[in-house]
């Protein structure tokens, strides 16, 4: 496997899959605040991903794992993922407060991160 393929796979596994773990399954939950358990899971997926050296934000993990990837080749997908994660960081307080509009936006952004990183992986492993 090429270095890019290995990095793309790690990005999908360690960021794309994890960040959408809760978000992609919340259809039909309703428009109000999330139940506590689901909110706690969503917050962990976005802002406290567990790893071998403690927890880190999804945006931090993307930055760390994307080092070494061919930035020019994957600019579009990386930029999409970075932009979504940056927006997620700006709405953290509202998400943690379980404000329905922020939670709905977070769900949408988390899914978009997964899609961007799947698209990136598909470029190296069609």
């Amino acid at each position, binding site marked *: 496997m090429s270095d890019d393929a290995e990095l793309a*796979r790690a990005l*999908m*596994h360690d960021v*794309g*899959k*994890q960040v*959408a*773990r*809760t978000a*992609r*399954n919340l259809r039909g939950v309703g428009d109000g605040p999330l139940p506590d*358990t*689901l909110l706690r*899971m969503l917050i*962990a997926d976005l802002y406290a991903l*567990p*790893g*071998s050296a403690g927890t880190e934000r999804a945006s931090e993990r993307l930055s760390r794992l994307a080092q070494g990837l061919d930035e020019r080749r994957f600019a579009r997908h990386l930029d999409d993922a970075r932009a979504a994660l940056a927006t997620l960081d700006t709405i953290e307080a509202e998400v943690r407060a379980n404000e329905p509009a922020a939670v709905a936006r977070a769900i949408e952004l988390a899914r978009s991160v*997964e899609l961007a990183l*799947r698209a990136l*992986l598909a470029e190296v*492993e069609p």
Partner: protein
Amino acid sequence: MWHHRAAMPVLLVVEDGHEYEEFARAFLQEWHVRAAHSAREAVALATEHPPAALLVDLRFERSSPDDLIGDVVGTARRRFAGDSARALRYLREQQGTLVLGALREAGVDAPAVFVTDFAPHRLANLRQLYGRVQAVPVFDAAAIRRALESA
């Protein structure tokens, strides 16, 4: 819907953390979820409460070396020119398949689902080794449910 736990099929989750277990308890509520964090624990639990299906993490990066199965020295010699650090990393990255192998050796033949995007040849190889194995690339509860039921 109310479920009587005793009547629910057992889903044995094996992982190095708690993310799969949380996911299963939240979104696969028709299963009675039990969780193990090493091959040893998984075999013990599966013997005590035979599972109807297995949900297995692939990478065990948070496990201590003592909790991993696999021969570091032999793997280093065979695959990495004696480099033990690379061998340990490899064993962590493949630990889920090794756990499944240990479960199969212990007589646990329940279908297994990995939440990962295995390449087709890799999945075919796992099926040849371990029988009923499915892979779902993302935490999609509906797809995982279908895989658990059809594996």
